[in-house]
């Protein structure tokens, strides 16, 4: 049993995924608030937009870490989300500031539903990957 770079990667990913889970929950709550009239779309977009890039970067960061650690399976599992993030960010509306959400279109029922669904899917993905990383970490620690 040895503390390898891979084990370090898994530990780091574990922590960061916990953070991402909070991001996802925050998104879900925010969109729910929008849907139930509690928040004004401009404010909501202003609070959500700055969080988008950090989330993507965190995910990108530990994908790179896994690449360096040659954890191919884990990397492979994360690639679809990475690709999705790239696609999502390149197809964002015309905006001068970072972020994805445009207050003028966010109240469109389709977009709102999409964002909510996206939030739930991400939450599920992060939760699953959280346990996967936990398992991966222990496995790496034990096997090496």
């Amino acid at each position, binding site marked *: 049993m040895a503390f390898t770079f891979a084990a370090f990667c898994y530990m780091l990913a574990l922590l960061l995924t916990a953070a991402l889970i909070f991001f996802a929950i925050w998104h879900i709550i925010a969109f729910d608030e929008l849907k139930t009239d509690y928040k*004004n*779309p401009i404010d909501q977009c202003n609070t959500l937009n700055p969080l988008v890039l950090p989330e993507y970067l965190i995910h990108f960061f530990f994908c790179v870490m896994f690449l360096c650690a040659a954890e191919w399976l884990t990397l492979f599992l994360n690639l679809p989300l990475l690709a999705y993030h790239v696609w999502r960010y390149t197809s964002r509306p*015309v905006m*001068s500031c970072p972020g994805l959400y445009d207050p*003028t279109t966010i109240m*469109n*029922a389709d977009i709102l539903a999409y964002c909510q669904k996206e939030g739930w899917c991400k939450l599920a993905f992060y939760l699953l990957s959280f346990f996967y990383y936990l398992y991966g970490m222990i496995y790496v620690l034990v096997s090496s």
Partner: protein
Amino acid sequence: MSAPGRTNLRGSVGYSQNSTPNGGAAPPCQNGPLQTYPPMYPPTGYYGAPPHHQGYPGVSAPGKAPVTNSANYYQSNQQHHVAPSSYSAGPPPQPYATVPSSAPPPPPPHAQYSQQPFQQPPYAPPGSYYAQQPYQVSPAQLHQQPGLVAAPASGPGAPIYPSAPGSGHYGTTRTTTAPEATQMGAPLHHYSAAPPPPTAALHPGYEAAAQMTVNGKGCAAGVQNSSHQHYDQSHPAPRSYNSYSGGGADRPASGTLSASAHSSPGRHQGTPFGFAADSGASSASAAASGPAGALTSSSSDDDDEDEDEEAGGDSSSSSTGSASPVPNNYDSLEGGSYPDSMPPSNDMTNQAQPYSNYGYQGMPPAYQQGPAQPTDAPPSQNLYGPSGYQPYSQPFPSLSQLSAALGGLSGVPELEVEALRPVNLLQERNLLPPRPLEAPEPDISSDLKKVNCSPQTFRCTLTSMPQTQALLNKARLPLGLLLHPFRDLQQLPVITSNTIVRCRSCRTYINPFVTFLDQRRWKCNLCYRVNDVPDEFMYNPVTRSYGEPHKRPEVQNSTVEFIASSDYMLRPPQPAVYLFVLDVSHNAVEAGYLKRFCDSLLENLDKIPGDTRTRVGFLTFDSTVHFYNLTEGLSQPQMLVVSDIDDVFIPSHDSLMVNLKESRELVKELLTSLPAMFSQSRETHSALGPALQAAFKLMSPTGGRVSVFQTQLPTLGAGKLQSREDPNQRSSAKGVQHLGPATDFYKKLALDCSGQQIGVDLFLLSSQYADLASLACIAKYSAGSVFYYPSFHHVHNPAQMEKFRRDLERYLTRKIGFEAVMRIRCTKGLSIHTFHGNFFVRSTDLLSLANVNPDSAFAVQMSIDDSLADSSLACFQAALLYTSSKGKRRIRVHTLCLPVVSQLSDVFAGADVQAITCLLANMAIDRSISCSLSDARDAVVNAAVDFASAYRSSVSNLQQSGLVVPAVMRLFPLYVLALLKQKALRTGTSTRLDERVFAMCEFKTQPLPQLMRMLHPDLYRLDNMSDQGALHLNDAVVPQPRLLHLSAETLSRDGAFLMDCGSVFYLWIGKGCGETFIRDVLGCPSYASVPSNMSHIPELQTPLSERVRAFLDWLQDNRAFSSTFHVVKDDSSAKAAFLQHLVEDRTESASSYHDFLQHVHQQMSK
């Protein structure tokens, strides 16, 4: 009614409003659309910075807080400062308290506002002050007394502004400084005899508020010619009422009771009534007494005439009000203001368009001519008369409200059979009705039908609401509403009532479709909650009887307007503020619009909606931004140039937006000299972005309307744009790029504007590409409008010039509503999916409209969340809360009721093909911006294919093969084809990007009839019109020629054809057109001598010419913007413009109608 009694009553009313305001108990977010403001822009304060809150003591405060204690007063104020009412700003006390009223206040207003209240303890205890003092100062205060009564002019809202101690103070200042004024006023008020002490004793708090109102008024009227800060001028009460008051001298005598006429049309009990009139009267008297007052009253007559439906009520009050000792009631409103009006229940259904003299009386014959297809069924106008109506109305038994749906469920065989008659489009070619289609009627009981909302205002794509989303999906038709909420109406019941009765849980306004369980309870038709009927509502002002809540005007009309109380305000209603932002670069000078604009504005300066508080400002820009100081007293306008466009600032805060009344001469001078000032300009750059930023800064304290005139691509400063159009791609069939904005600068600015209640209207007069896709955002999200004049030039393009002139005239003089919000509520189970139009969507059902104008419409896509099985009726209610140009807060409520059906065939039978097409167009525009144009086109074609397939699969016993659709929808494929050939969506034909984008903007904002004419113009043959079925209106005979198919087949060389495209008429003259027509109508000897650019019909005294002109006038009658007219000769170059509208024909890039049907048919069988 004795004076004390009256005052008491009012006092108590006021109290009850203050303590339990209408809906006040409900959580703020539910309390009317307005209540949702606070969370909106918390940091900046929706209506200004926090200092304002402090400075403007709340309305509610006087009522709620112990009035005798100044400290308490302000504390409570502070506590409430988030509440809407606390915005009700009185003018800042200081200037008037300490300085003579004419002294201009020192510049930094905010500082004053914030400090003021606390520094002025002497004036702070309003209650005690007025309860004790006023009546000791006899003549002056006697004058105040009636005014006191007048205070609650806008119902519960009255205590509003005035309640600010500062304003109260004004009055004092005024009465002391100008005693002659009050003395003048005093004798006019009979009610000054009212023994004040009891009143005061009974309701000190209210008294205080009311009293101060008056004072505020008097004072503001008196001092309005001094240069105020923004909020002084926006002090709403005084000026708005002044404007209603006509000559102060003849009205005040009316006193309270007669006054009721004024405020209201009698739709409420005697008590609350009189307020508006009273206040008008009192303020008028006050105004008339002062120098400024004289100004006010002299001009108020014009104001009265301006506002169409207000004028009715108001003028009736001025004529009958002073004479009648009885509360003027609903009848008298009807009788007084609308000479040939009908019973109250009619006025909803008869709303004709503004300029219509003709009405529709003559219609039935024309209708009877046509086949009795349900789509031709006349709309619910009663004017159609029973004869034309009976065939359709007979089948409907007069059902009670409760069983209304039975009519819908059981179905009406004849009607439905006809609507559902299968039509094989491939065989039946002649499908057009003889006259333009009318909206189908919902299949509800005739009682409900009578009161249902006019289809011109409110229309649903499916007049039979499917029960479930599954059923809707089966029908493959879009579900949505088309709304034209602020349409010019000829008749509109205006209701002033202390309590606006609304459902306690969903806040729906009471409407004709609620159910009265018994005398005291009503059941909401949207959420089914059982509510109590308030006492006040039991009295029916129409019959002046008690205990008939179901006869109240609110329950008899599905379109009503309420005068809102202070509960519906976040701040005092803003004045009408107009800022004109003019491009004066070289390009603009070349185009020469400036002269035309200045002339138009000069002509219409007196017709601009507003009151004495109206303010205007001008701002011009090229590579720098120029401001104009128009403060009264200057000998000529001062131009201030700001060349730092990267950080544009406002050079002077209080002199750039000036009161129109006071600075009228300077404004005129500026408008006269403006065109010449820049005639030598060589500056080619355009700093539109910085100019808009400056406009935003200039307007943000008040809100209002910004009109931007732009002639080229903005090239400097923030928001500069690059040309994105590739001329070679104009006719590309592949796809069109750059339909979306290039930058979000304009969108963000528009959102900021919307937050500050600034609406921006864009006039683009460009001959080059100017990136309308980006620029239009400024209007789109601030609820403005877009006007586009491609290749505008004052000499080379007279047609555009003429159009510009006409549009400007309408634009400047049309009604306007400020700081508006619109909420659309619908029956439980339905929800709003998407909005289309110009606005900012603030929550799932709330639109924020900085300005609302009578020419813009909205579309709403709906979805069905839950099954509607347990209800038989589905209702929609659109409530538009706005501030009129007279500074009154008003709520216009429209309610639409539709039957719920469970059968697919019923859904098909109730389809409204025009509404469906318009909604589809809106959806397609969205799609083409978010995805691509070809996607959108495919989606539109698929809509037709899907619908035809859905119909075929739903009808199992269908014998025919081919493309079969129900008769109601027989025009659907034609409209879809027409949609594909529109500038907005066409491919393959050379279309400039800006023109395409403008067409898209039009689709989003034009009302349905206009849109349908754009989409599928009406074609008539004029040279052989007969009098058969003609309308006889007044002394004119209006022939009703048959509608023709838009195909070259129907044109013949020997005829003259009129095509009505909404904003433009084409008169096409065939080569072999009869000499008589050319001579009698066009006044030319022969075909060859008809000039090629003829743009009007000469007024000849021949019968044929009279017929043609009568017909043209009749067509034009209901339009907001008058249409231009072109005579197109068969061999002229303008022929192409005419021919492109013949949508059934094949063009180089698009298929013919027949080919299109074949295509749809093929797609179906796939």
